[in-house]
């Protein structure tokens, strides 16, 4: 098949300013459960932000809005583009979403196919796809795993490949849902180094406040579908009352 789609079609136009803007985002699940109540949020380019909060706070729900898997209320703007069905492909290329469970993210038989899935569906030419895949695997230091079968990998390895699958799409904004869950201390350490070295804007949900403290200068606390605090991580972690009120614990 001749894939002749030009790459630039999927590249966002150059853009200065906040990479992500959310204004008054509401969302209810089809069963009527209201999961988000008026979320207000801005992310500047290059920021690395932690998103914390108890189980059921709405963190995953919010993240699924960032590239239009849920919702279409027009409350989300990515790199200046308001999210709507027409901009969707561009926005999905700009926002890389990594789910909590790598077994839900890695759905192809081999590592290569999985990492190539995004670029392939963006319609990139074959040569470009190979370049992208190699670069993505290189940056998570998994180049040697190119031809491996996904089900032969350990949890930590799967996690890294899952990150590579979205890096291959050259996202402007990386969104990770609980990347450290289930990792042993050594694998967690490797992940921290990896995230620290990636030069991309990041929004990361986590229950691991020690990780948040170490990696993210800014922290957002959610509870019951609302943002209840947004500020410098170190400051928020000092506020014992705030943490306790939202089921969190000082690391």
């Amino acid at each position, binding site marked *: 098949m001749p894939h002749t789609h030009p790459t630039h079609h999927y590249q966002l136009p150059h853009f200065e300013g906040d990479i992500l803007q959310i204004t008054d985002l509401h969302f209810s699940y089809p069963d009527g459960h209201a999961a988000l109540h008026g979320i207000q949020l801005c992310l500047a380019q290059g920021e690395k932000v932690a998103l914390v909060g108890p189980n059921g706070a709405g963190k995953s729900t919010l993240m699924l809005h960032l590239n239009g*898997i849920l919702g279409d209320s027009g409350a989300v703007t990515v790199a200046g583009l308001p999210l709507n069905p027409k901009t969707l*492909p561009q926005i999905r290329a700009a926002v890389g979403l990594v789910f909590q469970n790598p077994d839900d993210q890695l759905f192809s038989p081999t590592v290569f196919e999985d990492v190539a899935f995004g670029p392939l569906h963006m319609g990139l030419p074959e040569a470009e796809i190979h370049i992208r895949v190699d670069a993505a695997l290189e940056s998570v230091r998994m180049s040697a795993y190119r031809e491996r079968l996904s089900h032969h990998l350990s949890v930590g390895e799967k996690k890294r490949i899952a990150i590579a699958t979205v890096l291959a799409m050259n996202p402007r904004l990386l969104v990770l849902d609980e990347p450290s869950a289930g990792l042993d201390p050594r694998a967690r350490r490797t992940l921290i180094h990896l995230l620290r070295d990636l030069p991309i804007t990041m929004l990361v949900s986590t229950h691991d406040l020690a990780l948040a403290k170490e990696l993210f200068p800014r922290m957002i606390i959610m509870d019951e579908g609302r943002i209840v605090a947004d500020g410098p991580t170190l400051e928020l972690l000092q506020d014992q009352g705030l943490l306790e009120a939202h089921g969190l614990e000082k690391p």
Partner: protein
Amino acid sequence: MHADAFDRYYHAESPLHRLDPRVKVFLTVAFILSNALLSDGVWAAFGLAWLLILFANRFSGLGVEFSFKRSFIALPFALAAVSAIFIPAGQPLAEWTIGPIQLVPTDFGLMRFASILLRSWLSVQAGILLVAVTQFPDMIHAFEHLRVPAILTTIIAFLYRYLFVLTDEVMRLLRARESRSAALPGLKSGGSLFWRARVAGNMAGQLFLRSYERSDRIYNAMLARGYQGQMRTLRSHTMTRRDWLILSLGLFALIFLQLLARL
């Protein structure tokens, strides 16, 4: 936990491993077809077919007896063909009376039975060798190249990937049940058969819902990476001259075998 027990691929550096998967799949199917075309009792042709298998084994780097050693999995099914021995045709060989039943094995029946088994046994060996020298994802690519509908091959690719995830899940469920299957001295344990079947049913229902809901999450993950309803694949294999050569050699051998069988 690992369900790697399902992996039938054996790695080795061999000409057969390097062969284009299309050629391997095509020749395997042709070989099985050729077996089906052999009439009963052409022992020489069956022997030659086995020789071909041995030859292929030899070039797989896995040992000449590789497929032979694993080829008895279809044996239980042979029971289905046992009755062929007693077809009332040809010369009776003996007469056995077991209670009210009278069994008369005939030479025609025996030949028929042996031929069915041989055909099946040769075909199974070809299949075993195919999966031993071809990574399953490559095999799926071969089917794509051979124009099997993309939806079907993609479903099989998903099946392959999640086979391991879900069987692990089942194994863990079974362990949980096992670890609570206790007994106390002096009490009859185990519950009724109905109850046990219901527990198995609950486990199946549980697993079904979890799989169903997982497919939603995977769909989200696909959407997040630009999926818009159509699967695309990189056609990653190209046929070399060597591939074409081996393909023609293989087909030639099979045609020769068929001709020999008709002489």
